[in-house]
């Protein structure tokens, strides 16, 4: 059986596990748990009433948190010409066309987000086997296939997060760091929940948001009461 750490077990004793707490209290609880030796990421998990096997109930996209997520992400851009210059100016880690496609195909994946201009997608498509399993394949749905590379690069660099519903109908996303104030975290969480609520597929039946849980990297989860 999995062994839990002393800190985890202590944290577990501080609250009623199955009782949903109002958002502020839940955030306060997560912040109140003993901290690890680094600035932990605060995460949200939402269990949704959708069937992920059905394509018309698939929820995926990208979201920019109003208060950021407290970390800069490395972005590469598949583009050439003026768009490549614009991407470089916006602060992309690497910019290139077929040469960059070859580099990634050879196994270089030390970046968080890949953005491509539509014209390059015929080459980038060949990277499916490398980027697909890591969830880094550019798609128009998540805003990573776009001609406006400047905006895309700056947004994703600042912490725009891609999300998609997993096989258990859950959506995961980081909402900030433990060092954030409760107000900032609340703003991020509320914005994300609203975004997911707005993305409700028409085919979804029954309760849409079944459960919301907040946790930090090394803490237990705290149930959040959602109206």
């Amino acid at each position: 059986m999995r062994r839990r750490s002393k800190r985890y077990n202590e944290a577990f004793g501080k609250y009623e596990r199955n009782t949903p707490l109002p958002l502020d209290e839940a955030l306060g609880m997560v912040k109140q748990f003993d901290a690890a030796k680094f600035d932990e990421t605060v995460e949200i998990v939402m269990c949704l009433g959708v069937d992920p096997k059905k394509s018309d109930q698939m929820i995926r996209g990208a979201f920019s948190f109003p208060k950021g997520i407290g970390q800069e992400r490395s972005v590469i851009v598949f583009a050439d010409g003026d768009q490549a210059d614009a991407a470089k100016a916006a602060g992309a880690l690497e910019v290139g066309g077929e040469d960059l496609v070859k580099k990634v195909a050879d196994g270089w994946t030390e970046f968080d987000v890949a953005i491509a201009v539509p014209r390059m997608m015929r080459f980038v498509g060949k990277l499916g086997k490398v980027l697909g399993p890591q969830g880094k394949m550019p798609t128009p749905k998540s805003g990573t296939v776009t001609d406006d590379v400047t905006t895309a690069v700056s947004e994703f660099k600042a912490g725009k997060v891609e999300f998609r519903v997993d096989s258990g109908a859950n959506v995961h996303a980081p909402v900030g760091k433990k060092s954030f104030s409760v107000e900032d975290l609340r703003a991020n969480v509320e914005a994300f929940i609203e975004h997911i609520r707005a993305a409700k597929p028409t085919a979804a039946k029954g309760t849409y948001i079944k459960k919301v849980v907040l946790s930090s990297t090394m803490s237990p989860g705290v149930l959040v009461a959602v109206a």
Partner: protein
Amino acid sequence: MSRRKAGWGSVWYPPRGPPDPVTLLQYVAADVSACPRRIPFSPMSLISFIDVHKDLGGKKVLDGVTAEIHDGERIGLIGRNGCGKTTLLRMITGELEPDSGQLHRKKSLRVGYLPQQPVVREGLTTWESALEPFEELRAIEREIAEVEEAMGTADDDALAALVERQAALQERYTDAGGYQYVPRVEAALTGLGLRTEHFDRPVEKLSGGEKNRLGLAKLLLQEPDLLVLDEPTNYLDIHAVRWLEEFLRGYKSATLLVSHDRYFLDRTVIKIWEHRTGLVDAYKGNYSEFEQQREERDERQQKEFDEQQREIARQKEFIRKNIAGQKTKQAQGRRKQLERMERIEAPDSGEGDARIVFEYTGRSGNDVLRVKGLQKSFGDRTLFRDLEVELALGDRVGIIGANGTGKSTLLRILEGMETPEEGEVKVGSNVQIGYYDQEHRTLDRSKTLFESLREIVPQWSDLEVRNFMAAFLFREDEVFKNVSDASGGERARIALARIALTGSNFLVFDEPTNHLDLSSRQVLEQALIEFPGTLLMVSHDRYLLDRTVEKLLVFDGNGGVELFLGNYSRYAEKLAEREAAERRAEDERKQRERDDAKRKSAKEADARAAERKAKAKRKFSYEELETKIMETEERIESIHAEMSGEEAYRDPERMKALGEKLESTRNELAELEDEWATWG
């Protein structure tokens, strides 16, 4: 609600002539009194047979079968050759429908069926064939490639649409496991013993065992809810059978397998379905437990039958005596009672065993077979080279080796069906070969079983042919079955019957026990033991080998063939000893390596500790140390100079003091030099 407890699970009483479609509610609401028999039915089962009847070629193959398969169950289906096991399987797969009764499948049930002789599409390589279950994914791959091709020439508007299409296809591809299927195919093939060098080989060049493995791998890749295997151990070598046993024991979904290999059944199944006289009886446990339960049941049934027969005789006697007397009313009552009595049947003693005798055509020459320098390859793969075999009259030799190592090919060369690349095969004088082909290619599929035998003995009357066939358990209309419709066991029996009729003094058999049921195997064993001629036989049936052969030709799979003097058990012992010795040597080597590594790391640790100690002792940095040494050396030189001066010479006290100072400075220098040495 009419629901009662019975034997295993809940029981409902459906109405006579059950409604269609069957629903649980209809059963619950059904009229109990109208029910002809007790029907086990559980809504949680994957598949349920409810009073299923099926006739094939005028024979009642299924006669009121009631049974069900639950999720996760591993069931062994046993029964005599030709009793209808395969028919039952084909019903489960949806290939056949019942004549009456109900076959209830769980909604969207995925059944994976491996027939006795897997049909593989020719013209493909092994790899392409293994990818067939993923045709949908491969179609998406092709479509993505087309979209990307079109992107090269598209204008802006078209490009936007193509990018959307590409993304949608990518998403479908990801969701359907597009990025995982290639490693999965590779793992399944290699797990079943098909090496990477097999991947490019055309499927038609695969051996029987390899085709079976390929079929099984494809089936497992589809991850069916119910795995149906028809005699999966046929053609598999001993290692592959062990692998399959392990695999099935860890397999999560339900499995139904037909097998005549009791050892395989003992190791794999948790329930036995016995198919006899058109019915299916379920027993909990593996094959050995089934045998015990079956024996107990038969004993019990025999006892009840005997008791009932005694009672019937007593009643009949009473009726006979009193029907015309004073007690006529009583006698009439008892007669009515007797008429109404539910009769207990005597336990089924089966249809009897086959009788096989291979006709011996008389003594051959002393030298039966001489094979010299034989070589055969497929592509760049050598099956065997420089093969030497000599068989003398009365030799009984078994051939063993992994699938695809050339065992059947050797027999086909002896029979003249294939030509070797090098070497010669010399058959002795007066040698009559009786060849049994494991895939029964010697049988014409368009003929009936009767005709297949008839052509061997045209001079016989129909009655004689039928009598002969009866000895091989072909009864009544079964003899007119087409070879193409016959079961694997029936084909095996007719092929053996042909050999028995032809007459021979040298039997060349390729896996003769495949498809045969247990009792037929034993009969074949006996026939082979009694055969006075020479025998050369490929088999993976270790019991058959143990009882019938005295020597073994072992194909190692790398082109080499080793002759072993002894039966299979002796060979297995030797092999186990050899493997144990190899394992011991390997363990010892590993232990030596571990000891060496330990010693080395201990040495290194000592060295590191010494270094740490030395470092801890250091008082100066390297540069400081060098300066200090130089200074000390200069001081020693100046003391020397002073001591050689006249002043010191004249003053003994001074000289003594200088001597002491020199000594202490030298010590100081020695210490500094020691420290210097620690810097390496």
